[in-house]
């Protein structure tokens, strides 16, 4: 285990813990995505790992060495952890190049050329941050973190400030850079798409507690509770024999006639297909169709019993 977090707890105010208890570990070279709602404590978690916040209790171990426990506290200056912050990434009084080599040990200077090429910034070395686009700034931040060959890379919502057009290409580029440099990474985000596209494993965090920690596929197909299930995609709710089941939209098929009938509320053209929103027994349902359907018309639906997902009936109360 490369990074190990055991029993981590953190609160800013006494009786309102942000992180109640967190145990998990990461293998070398893995990309982990830490998924949680805004304000759930994602940034706080990264600050604890990097030593910018003290922890209440627990152990943080990196590469076999204890960074933080009851007795030990390695200063943030001395942890080899790269941190790409959510906002304000570059020093405004320094050029891009100066930002990247800021306080850099001599031995790392040799990577500069490679890093700047890898991040596609070669033409921009002498620009000041305000002369760079958001994406260029993001890449520069990542280059600045990576050039120091960090033992661990922490990315705090690196895509949140980007246009969605530009975002995909930057996401791919960052992925490429991280994978090429084989850097162990924790990516914090609230966007499920980013997680699914980049991460080897996803960690879902809610109410101060880890909910599920698994690879994207298992997460989607075998969510541990309704919260995790809903985060990864739309869910349609259906009651059978007084039990609440769920089913994913893509498992539904439109048929000529069946018992399950839906009133169409909206029908969006989504390019490759139409997304249909309708009501089924007062629940809002989604499904896909290759063709447009008329609003307020009734359609019939079919699905396989095996595609139903079941959670404890209390689940949805628990998370609302």
């Amino acid at each position, binding site marked *: 285990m490369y990074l190990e977090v055991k029993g981590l707890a953190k609160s800013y105010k006494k009786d309102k813990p942000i992180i109640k208890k967190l145990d998990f570990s990461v293998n070398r070279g893995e990309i982990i995505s830490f998924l949680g709602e805004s304000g759930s404590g994602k940034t706080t978690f990264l*600050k604890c790992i*990097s*030593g*910018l916040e003290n922890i209440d209790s627990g152990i943080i171990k990196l590469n076999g060495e204890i960074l933080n426990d009851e007795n030990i506290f390695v*200063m*943030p*200056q*001395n942890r080899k*952890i*790269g*941190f790409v*912050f959510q*906002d*304000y*990434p570059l*020093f*405004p*009084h320094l050029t891009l190049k100066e930002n990247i080599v*800021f*306080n850099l040990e001599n031995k790392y200077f040799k990577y500069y050329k490679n890093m700047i090429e890898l991040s596609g910034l070669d033409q921009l070395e002498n620009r000041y941050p*305000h002369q760079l686009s958001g994406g260029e700034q993001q890449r520069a931040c990542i280059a*600045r973190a990576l050039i*120091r060959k960090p033992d661990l890379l922490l990315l705090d919502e690196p895509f949140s400030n980007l246009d969605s057009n530009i975002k995909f290409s930057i996401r791919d580029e960052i992925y490429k850079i991280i994978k090429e440099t084989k850097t162990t990474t924790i990516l914090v985000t609230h966007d499920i798409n980013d997680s699914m596209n980049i991460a080897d494993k996803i960690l879902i965090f809610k109410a101060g507690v880890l909910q599920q920690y698994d690879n994207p596929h298992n997460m989607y197909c075998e969510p541990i509770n309704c919260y995790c299930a809903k985060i990864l995609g739309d869910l349609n709710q259906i009651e059978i024999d007084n039990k609440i089941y769920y089913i994913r939209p893509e498992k539904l098929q439109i048929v000529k006639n069946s018992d399950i009938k839906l009133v169409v509320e909206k029908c969006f053209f989504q390019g490759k297909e139409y997304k249909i929103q309708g009501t089924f027994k007062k629940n809002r349902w989604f499904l896909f169709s290759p063709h447009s359907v008329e609003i307020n018309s009734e359609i019939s639906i079919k699905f396989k019993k095996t595609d139903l997902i079941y959670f404890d009936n209390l689940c949805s109360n628990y998370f609302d």
Partner: protein
Amino acid sequence: MEIKKILFSNNKRWIIGSFILAFLVLLPILTLFVRLPSLENTTFKYLWDTLLIDYTISTFYLLIITCFFSLLFAVLPAWIISNYQFAGRKFFDIVLYLPLAIPTYIMAFTYADILSFTGPLQVFFRKNFHSISDFVNHDYMQVEILGLLMGLALYPYVYSVCRVSFSLIGSNYINLSKNLGLSMTKTFFKVILPLSSPAIISGLFLVIMEVLNEYGAVKYFGVNTYTSGIFRAYGSMGDVGAAIQLSVLLLFVVLLFMYVEKKYHSRFKFYYSSNSKIQKLSILEKKNYLLSIVICFIPFLLGFLIPFLFIVSNIFLTYNQIDFLDLIELTLNSVSVSTLASVIVVLVVLFFLMVEKFTKSSFNRYTSEVISLGYAVPGAVIGLGLIILFTTIDRSQSSIVFYGSFFVLIYAYVVRFLAVGKSPIKSSLEKHPESYDETAKNLGLGPFNLLKKIHIPINKFAILTALIVTFIDLLKELPITLILRPFNFDTLATQTYEFAIEEMIPMSAAYSFIIIVIGSFLLIILKNSINKQINVS
């Protein structure tokens, strides 16, 4: 082209209005330009040849020392208070502004007295440690000491901007530096200082202006600055023309400083923009506690406590000679003219800034720049300009309409102190996004309502700051009041000055005491107002 654009724009009434007002504001200075004699003027040549080099050198020397001490007393305490939690922090956060309440000349006179052979310091040593009393027996009236004293009197200008800037920089950059392996000291020098430099420079700019215009203190210390040259031409040599020439020259030097300040400012303009997170105060480590207390205490001790106590002791000494009725009358005089003038200053400033904001014309950007020029001209010279101006007007009307009235006095105050009132309001306005204006317009607000319903409420702390700072400066104002006041009119400052130059410092104590007390009271309000701005923006 530009003119055509103005004449056809929807805002031409505003643009023309602001042009007229700017013309009025600059009129006293323009009058001087009109009177500018040719450079052949013998007095000017004479001064140029004999004294100006010396005067210039000592001016710059004094500037450098004063700036050094202003930075020394301002930056570190501001940093400590903005970042660390420690017992006494709240106290220092208030008292470090207080030296601003003490006029520079009083600071100089008082310390000269304290340090003199008959002052408490030397007397104490003579009485108790006679053997070493010779070591403290010095002539303390040196330019370096003067620089130190002026630094003490003026550092709050730098302190207040640093305090705001350090708080606004917030935790993000500091965290980033830590993550990149910088120690706190390194962070301070490599990140915090460069990021705050526009703020620091704008604070230093005020210090520089004050030093360039100081006359009483420098004369007393026998340091001849550029302003001494102006007074030598004006007073001793009786050559008004040469004085005007020198003032214009000084104006150009100041314009140069202004240009540098602007350039610097624009380069870093973007950095506050959307910093939302307020820096959380760190707990001060035990081993640094004492040092921090000392660093914060020294500027307060030297800049306020000692002179204040000395003044209080002088009051006790002269208690039976104080004319309380006179004291009350002068207090009322000072307070009423300062209030009136500072309110007008703020109104005029608001007018210019608002017109600039909603016309978005580059012409208005320039006008609201140049109205600050009055601050660069020594008060006595502005007084001179107004005398020339109004006596000309009066003569052409052959009656005494304006001249020698409060109107002229207030006019001169406004011309001189617009810059002081402008800077806090302007920087606050800059922090608010354009979309406030646009939304309000879209919701149907005209210019007056825009000001009343949006800009005054959201910039109220900045407006309060501007009022207070201008008021305190006016309370201390001397040269303009001396020359332009109406009959039988004294202020606390003029009375203090009259006693001081008649070598009756103890008698002046009661008057300076009131200046300091009123100033301090307002500065405490100011501190709250500044802190609110930090938290709100």
